């Protein structure tokens, strides 16, 4: 005679099988929950990696002021040397750190020749350096070196 009810379950090893099934299902769910909880970190990691690669590519592509050679291009042009000297003088008179817009306005007001292009040249050569707060510092030593010891 075959056992019936709970005895039959026990006889056929049903409790162990049920427990094993329970364990497998809950372990699976646990692993799934853990994977979902860290999914955003994995995605962030790949996104950042992608961004870094794109930024590296960009760095090599875009022209930046820092990559350019420290040279005052327009200083070689006839009559423009004086414009650079005017800026040097203004940088001495004006309060430091310099407001670039005020410096440009002062240069324009004094009739400095090609004041916009000369300002761009000074910036690209690094004579005028950003202080990181929206103002600029004049590097007199570099200016003199670039102007040929003046």
């Amino acid at each position, binding site marked *: 005679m075959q056992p019936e009810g709970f005895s039959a379950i026990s006889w056929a090893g049903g409790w162990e099988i049920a427990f094993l099934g329970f364990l497998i299902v809950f372990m699976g769910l646990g692993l799934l929950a853990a994977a979902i909880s860290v999914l955003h970190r994995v995605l962030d990691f790949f996104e950042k990696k992608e961004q870094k690669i794109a930024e590296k590519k960009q760095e090599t592509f875009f022209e*930046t*002021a820092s990559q350019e050679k420290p040279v005052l291009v327009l200083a070689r042009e006839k009559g423009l040397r004086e414009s650079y000297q005017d800026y040097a003088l203004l940088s001495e008179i004006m309060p430091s750190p310099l407001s*670039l*817009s005020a410096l440009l306005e002062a240069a324009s007001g004094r009739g400095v020749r090609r004041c*916009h*292009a000369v300002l*761009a040249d000074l910036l690209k050569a690094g004579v005028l350096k*950003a202080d990181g707060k*929206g103002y600029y510092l004049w590097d007199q030593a570099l200016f003199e070196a670039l102007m040929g010891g003046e």
Partner: protein
Amino acid sequence: MQILDKSMLRILEKTPLLRHVSMESIDILSSYLDLLSLKEGEELYSWGRAAEALYLSVSGDFLMAFPDGRSFTLHGSGKIIGMNSLLPGKHYTARAIALTDSLLMALYKEKWFRLLRDNPLFQEQVERSVRNYLKARRKGEDSTIFLMDSDRSWGDD
């Protein structure tokens, strides 16, 4: 329709603002852009003016000056100017001046909205890209744009 040359398309392709935008969408975008050249010393826009266009530099040097005396400069290609134009009802918070002869690609607001309306796929891609770009700006990942004219820390919008 404005025809852009290959180097200009390359600038669009590489700009951080369009990082998540497909090449097909960039092609579509290029047909909505206008070219604008500025002479040395010419003003692009002034603070307080309604932000009507977004600019992307092709060449040249620019001074972005704020009313409180602070400023920053942008040099060369691929620089974004006038981000406020992407937001409705905004004004420029800086004055943009070309320091040297410059060339820009301009996306005027009405064209921008038409582009988004006509191209839902582009809208999805570009919105994601703009969101990421603004997020990166807030984190200060791009050192050249911490003083951008739409930065709220600079006060008057």
